[in-house]
């Protein structure tokens, strides 16, 4: 009996995994229904791809910020590298659409990952706020260089990029990103990354190679940001360097923080809401940004100033599930 049970746990074909596979397929049909059916109007349908892109960006940034614990304000830089690399590939290759796009995605992600190694050098020397400002600087350096180069079209940017991105590609990439990052953080490598976040001195003392895992987290996050960039460019068909300034990085960071540091589910939900919300508020156009700002401040004050804990303890507020990492069952 014992033996049979443990055998079951060894294999990848557990009940849970079958369940997840079924969920992924079901999810695809839901997305297809939304994208092709008549449930949503055109305006909302056009949000499906951006939501997916922001999910990839937020989940990958969560790896560096939530799990590794290093504040990164340069995620849009990696995205820019992926976007431009991918666009240059599909603009210059003459291959069938699918082949071309797969190459663009892989190469775009990989080049971004190589830049992730580059940022690894300061990552190993700096901490906290200093690292944050260096990642921001890195973002601006990339934007500025793209602005300067001829091949990227300078300030005018690139246009006539084939519109390959559709909900099928985005859904596939979102699923891939979530699976890989979820699996990573729940593996020995992921535990090493979280251990470094919680206490790097102790992490070193138990034999973890701190530098290796810090760079690894940045590289993997950069790879997926690059993929998101490729999807982004092939959705809009035009790219401008100004699309990738540090405000874009901050936008992604806000999603991660509101979703909860170290919570993949939170990142997904927050990415969907924060992409959707501005569209809904379009009617109140002038007040949109104001409302966004007020909501942001109010959320942070509510969550972090102890008001929430006090209300929950006095019983005035039901204990909401915290969107932060909380594995204790």
């Amino acid at each position, binding site marked *: 009996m014992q033996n049979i049970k443990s055998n079951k746990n060894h294999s990848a074909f557990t009940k849970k995994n079958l369940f997840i596979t079924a969920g992924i397929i079901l999810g695809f049909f839901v997305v297809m229904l939304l994208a092709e059916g008549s449930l949503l109007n055109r305006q909302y349908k056009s949000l499906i791809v951006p939501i997916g892109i922001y999910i990839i960006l937020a989940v990958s940034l969560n790896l560096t910020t939530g799990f590794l614990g290093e504040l990164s304000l340069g995620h849009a830089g990696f995205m820019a590298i992926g976007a431009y690399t991918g666009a240059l590939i599909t603009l210059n290759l003459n291959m069938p659409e699918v082949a071309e796009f797969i190459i663009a995605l892989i190469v775009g992600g990989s080049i971004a990952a190589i830049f992730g190694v580059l940022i690894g050098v300061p990552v190993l020397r700096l901490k906290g706020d200093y690292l944050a400002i260096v990642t921001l600087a890195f973002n601006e350096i990339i934007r500025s260089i793209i602005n300067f180069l001829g091949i990227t079209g300078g300030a005018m940017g690139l246009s006539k990029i084939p519109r390959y991105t559709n909900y099928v590609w985005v859904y596939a990439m979102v699923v891939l990103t979530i699976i890989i990052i979820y699996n990573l953080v729940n593996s020995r490598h*992921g535990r090493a990354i*979280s251990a470094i976040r919680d206490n790097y001195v102790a992490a070193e003392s138990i034999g973890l190679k701190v530098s290796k895992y810090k760079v690894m987290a940045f590289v993997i996050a950069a790879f997926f940001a690059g993929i998101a960039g490729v999807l982004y460019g092939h959705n809009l068909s035009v790219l401008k360097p100004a699309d990738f300034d540090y405000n874009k990085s901050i936008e992604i960071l806000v999603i991660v923080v509101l979703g909860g540091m170290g919570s993949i589910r939170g990142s997904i939900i927050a990415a969907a809401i924060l992409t959707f919300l501005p569209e809904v508020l379009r009617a109140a156009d002038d007040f949109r940004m104001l409302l966004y700002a007020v909501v942001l401040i109010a959320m942070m004050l509510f969550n972090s100033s102890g008001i929430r804990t006090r209300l929950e303890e006095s019983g005035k507020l039901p204990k909401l599930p915290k969107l932060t990492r909380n*594995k204790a069952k």
Partner: protein
Amino acid sequence: MSLLEVKNLGISFGGLRAVDDVNLNIEKGQLYGLIGPNGAGKTTIFNLLTGVYRPTTGTIKLDGVDIVGKSPSEICQTGIARTFQNIRLFKKMTVLDNVKAALHNQVKYSLITSFFRTSSYYQLEKQMNEKAMEILKVFDLDGQASYLASNLPYGKQRKLEIARGLATNPKLLLLDEPAAGMNPNETAELMETIRLVRDKYNITILLIEHDMKLVTGICEKILVLNFGTELATGVPEEVLNNPEVITAYLGE
């Protein structure tokens, strides 16, 4: 043959000689105590042994291997584990994950296996879980395996740190004030656990402690440190009756 051989160990910070010419020989399986007044350089010696600081002078050999200049993580892999005076747990991780993180170099699988969860992932994770639970059981922490480390009471946090150190499969375990902040009952229990760990896992233990009951109770040999230098070495009864040691602790 001695497991740890330290010769003429010394370090200066600026002009201050924090540790000066310390010699230390620990036999395999020994329970060794390192005592001395506050600021004597005890924790500094731990930091030198584990590679947090690089010594200015002297040699450190573990099982005949020179470890001076190695990084903390390399030193851990050659067989020294430690706990910290101010507890350093992975607070936002579960008790189980704290120990599993320390099994990192015992049970290995590749990054690709992590990404795609091939069948060896399930196999090796299970092996890790079993190993970790076995260690937690020794410290009576198996019931709290799914708690966040920060939610454990103080005494249990100290125990978890020892469990985590043990999980790296060390030859030598360094404990920095394991009984700090514990009441007499907890201390007595801890003494039992330390002895048990030594016997069960067949390791050597060097500990810093202020609680003399614990030191005389379990240490087979002690070294007294004062102002960074060796004051006395020997069996506890002898050393603690040494007039110089008494002066160092109580003053003239």
